[in-house]
């Protein structure tokens, strides 16, 4: 069963306990100044964002078919069976294609490090593997961030929306976006008002590049035969001309 995080914006009080516990887990600094930054960076792998008195959260969405995993040339990013999308700095060569490609603009970089790493939330894979909730879910005082099986969380989200339909915008963010994500979000207002992208297709993005990549063997085989054939034809003429020329010389 794949794990997921459910963030309910209507229950969030913006206390940033999730940020602090996340920083603690990654051994990163946290103070009021960093709290006010409100954007992901190498020292801040999750953040609360404020939108006209409403709160939202940013963290890696842990897509079901992640764009970053598909674009990484060396397989430094992997989707684990449990749900988290994880990164291996030892494989990474630092091309930053994952950063360019991520539809949620999540992966961030250690720009001032001589051996820079891509940084992003890994959904506390070690804690998940041990059956514990993510650090952010454990720290959340209101239950706005919850952690559990994805199907159970979807059911819970639907239950909340059905119980108080006036409090919720009737959609779950992450249910269908780019083929579904392991982070789900609920809101009182349309998601774009929380700074979330609502123009994403419901198909996973890796299909777009695969449409081109899948033709590579065709180009190689047809192209190889074609070029070889053209070479044979164009040089055959030469052989014929030479043979005829040679024949004439022989006759004379």
């Amino acid at each position, binding site marked *: 069963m794949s794990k997921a995080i459910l963030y309910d914006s209507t229950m969030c009080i913006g206390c940033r306990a999730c940020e602090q516990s996340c920083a603690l887990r990654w051994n990163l600094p946290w103070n009021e100044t960093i709290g006010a930054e409100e*954007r*992901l*960076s*190498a020292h801040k792998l999750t953040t609360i964002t404020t939108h006209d008195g409403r709160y939202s959260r940013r963290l890696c969405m842990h897509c079901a078919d992640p*764009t970053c995993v*598909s*674009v*990484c*040339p*060396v*397989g*430094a990013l992997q989707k684990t069976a449990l749900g988290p999308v994880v990164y291996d700095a030892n*494989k*990474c*060569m*630092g*091309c*930053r*294609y994952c*950063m*360019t*490609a991520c*539809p949620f*603009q999540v*992966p*961030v*970089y*250690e*720009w*001032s*490090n*001589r*051996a*820079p790493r891509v940084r992003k939330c890994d959904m506390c894979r070690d804690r998940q593997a041990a059956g514990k909730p993510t650090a952010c879910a454990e720290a959340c005082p209101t239950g706005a961030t919850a952690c559990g099986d994805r199907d159970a969380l979807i059911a819970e989200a639907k239950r909340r929306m059905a119980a108080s339909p006036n409090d919720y915008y009737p959609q779950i963010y992450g249910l269908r976006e780019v083929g579904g994500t392991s982070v789900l979000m609920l809101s009182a207002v349309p998601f774009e008002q929380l700074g979330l*992208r609502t*123009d*994403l*297709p419901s198909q996973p*993005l*890796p299909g*777009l*590049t*695969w*449409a*081109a*990549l899948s033709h*590579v063997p065709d*180009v*190689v085989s047809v*192209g*190889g035969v074609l*070029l*070889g054939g*053209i*070479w044979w034809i*164009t*040089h055959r*003429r*030469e052989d014929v001309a030479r043979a005829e020329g040679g024949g004439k010389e022989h006759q004379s």
Partner: protein
Amino acid sequence: MSESVLVLPKTADLFKSHTLGWYVWRGIFAVLMLAGAYATYVRFTAGLGGVTNLSDRFPWGIWVGFDVFCGVGLAAGGFTLVAAVHIFNIERYRPIVRPAVLTAFLGYILVVVALLYDLGRPWNIWHPLVMWNPRSVMFEVAWCVTLYSTVLALEFVPAVLERLQWKRTLAWLRVVSIPLVIVGVLLSTLHQSSLGSLFLIVPRKLYPLWYSPMLPVMFFISAVCAGLAMTIFESWHSSRAFGRQLEMPLLNGMARLMAVLMAVYLTIRFLDLLHRDALRLLLENRTETWLFGLECALMVIPTVLLFSRRVRENPTALYFMALLVLFGFIANRLNVSITGMEAGSGVHYIPRWTEVAITLAICALGFAVFRWAVLNLPVFEQKE
């Protein structure tokens, strides 16, 4: 400074008297090398953040957009001419195959040098060769760069071997030359188009005037055009620098091919905009519209003019047409990789001077090595 080592003694013999121009060019070269050396030092001590204006929201700058994208494209003259002569057997182009292959080879080496600057962990540059992810376009790009650089090296090696008089190795290379040429043409076809495929994954980030499912095809055709333009460009410069006769009938023929391919390219782009319902975007007063207009003007003007015999047969006019095509090509690659990505990323990117310094130093190095090779290896006077 050690920079002067690059210009070998033989070069100096060419200039009997050191004119003002000689000192100016050498001075510019030294300044570029010094600036590049400083930027290199900062790059490898303070990290990418110390020399670039790249950010989490804008992770690719001119080292990718110009050095890699334009560098690879401008090297396309190599495979175009190799295919014309060795596969299509158009013998008359043989004299300019070698300079074109040399340009391509140097282009690829410089692309790899640029990558060593741009990659965050350049010591892992070989990882794609052993850690496979065939779903990644970047994986394909990495393999194409590696294999095609090798092929180009093997295609250029005869020039070195002739100089060294290694006849047996030469004979052996001739045996494998045709398969090598075919592999080379295939690899560069894949590589040129895969640079376009890289952007297929950013449908909502790249501005719709440039994002298209046809990007791989467009990148390929425009690269062939740029390769031809680059060959005309460097034939013109070589003829001036080395006092050689310009092969006008050859260049005229290439210009015709270039004009036709450009016309095909522009038609595909127009139809693509039409089918994607993106033409209406041209009515919006945005930076993207104007830059798209500039790019198109740079491509349309030479395409139209090149159909005139008078333009093609006038060396200066032909040179400027090739230059326009090259600028149009560069504008396109920069628009796709930088300008077109700005709005979707929500940031404005202007390269820092150190980014420009490294790019210029790499280009200057390329020119210097090309010059050295032309003067010291049988590049232009090819014996068969």
